[in-house]
């Protein structure tokens, strides 16, 4: 039986900012349906890696294959959900207008219906006509989560997804991520919130000064001691 092709495949990836190598010879694969937690200190290269996976930046060397295609192919981008540092929400539009716009952008058959459904799921339906700029930080983050999930992407790229979320919103996001994994989606997330990430992760990659120094399955030992990987690679928390 032929092996299943990876959802994400990186081969010898290098990215320079000027003469500084932000990523150095990064190679790994993420199998479909896996949840990969990207761990590492600030400046290690996690966000640069996620930006390349999302097609926001091109590597200087190496090859990236996402869901069997090139990162900038429209078919591939239609299957990606991105939750980056910014929430990707327009302050001068209402919650409903924001989600309807993104549903249309993703080519959903019934954009308004999808927008209403996701406002319900994220507890924002009561304030659907409120402008995003009037929302609290937590509400804006929930709206961003709805925006990233509403087209049921096959690959979710999340950069610090738990930042600025309260306990309830973290539980909502974890629930949505579990649901996405159950339907076969692949998740790649960078995070400093180790416990929340390791609870979800099936695999872990440790990034250190632009190199992936560890990539493998998440173990019970990591779950019991979330700082284990950092200590192993000489970066005690």
């Amino acid at each position, binding site marked *: 039986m032929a092996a299943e092709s990876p959802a994400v495949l990186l081969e010898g990836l290098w990215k320079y900012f000027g003469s500084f190598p932000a990523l150095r010879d990064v190679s790994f694969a993420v199998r479909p349906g896996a949840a990969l937690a990207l761990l590492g200190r600030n400046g290690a290269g996690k966000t640069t890696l996620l*930006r390349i996976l*999302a*097609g*926001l*930046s*091109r590597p200087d060397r190496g090859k990236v294959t996402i869901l069997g295609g090139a990162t*900038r192919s*429209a*078919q591939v*981008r*239609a299957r*990606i959900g*991105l939750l*980056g*540092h*910014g*929430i*990707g*929400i*327009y*302050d*001068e*539009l209402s919650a409903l*207008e924001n989600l309807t*716009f*993104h549903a*249309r*952008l*993703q*080519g959903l058959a019934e954009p308004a219906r999808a927008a209403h459904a996701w406002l319900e799921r994220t507890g924002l339906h009561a304030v659907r006509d409120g402008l995003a700029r009037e929302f609290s930080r937590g509400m804006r983050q929930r709206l961003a989560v709805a*925006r990233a999930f509403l087209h049921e992407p096959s690959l979710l790229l999340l950069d610090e997804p738990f930042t600025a979320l309260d306990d309830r919103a973290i539980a909502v996001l974890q629930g949505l991520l579990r649901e996405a994994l159950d339907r076969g989606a692949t998740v790649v997330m960078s995070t400093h919130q180790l416990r929340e990430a390791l609870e979800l992760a099936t695999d872990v990659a440790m990034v250190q000064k632009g190199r992936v120094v560890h990539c493998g399955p998440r173990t019970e030992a990591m779950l019991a001691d979330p700082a284990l990987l950092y200590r192993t690679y000489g970066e005690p928390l």
Partner: protein
Amino acid sequence: MKFLRLTLLIASKDLRSEFRTKETLNASLSFALAILVLFSFAFDPDSDMIRQIAGGLLWMVFAFSSALILNRGFAREVPNDCLDTLIASPVSGAQLFLGKTVANYVLLLLVEAVSLPVFGVFYNANWARRIGLLALVFILAAWALAVMGTMFSALTVNLRLRELMLPALLYPALVPALMAAIQLTNLLIAGDTVGKEDQIWFRLLAGFDAIFTLLGLALAETVFVG
């Protein structure tokens, strides 16, 4: 068809945002009207004077006031990293560029449509005598402003001094289109016919529009992703 759908989706989102806040439109219109009124005190608007200055004055006003609109086109996407979200979505660089250009174009035409009658009143100019051809000049030249301005707005969006950089890059590049628009506007507001020797200006405007629209569409993906 899908290309057009996503292009119009981007344009309508920008126009909805702008009409809700009206921050750029109000600023651009106020600037255009203030300059027109102030210059009317400086000139004695007799018919000879109008023949000489109408085109230059109007297109200087439109070019300067358009910078406010054009700067905002991509700056609107900066808060909350909305531009990243758009670039990572299925919309192509060309669709994003064209959508932004269309939204800027509609706003520029609105400013022109309001400013022209005001010009007529303050300068005692009968601008409606050759309204059909004058409208054609405005349509072609506004597209030149929109397409070049959107291209440079995309290039300068991540610069801290983008408000200064955009005009510094845009105006020199716009010289051929502005020259054509000024010549034709002078002729048409004076009520003259456009002779064979003047038709070159129409061809220049149309050619400018076509070349820079195609160039913008071809380069957009490189500008956004590198």
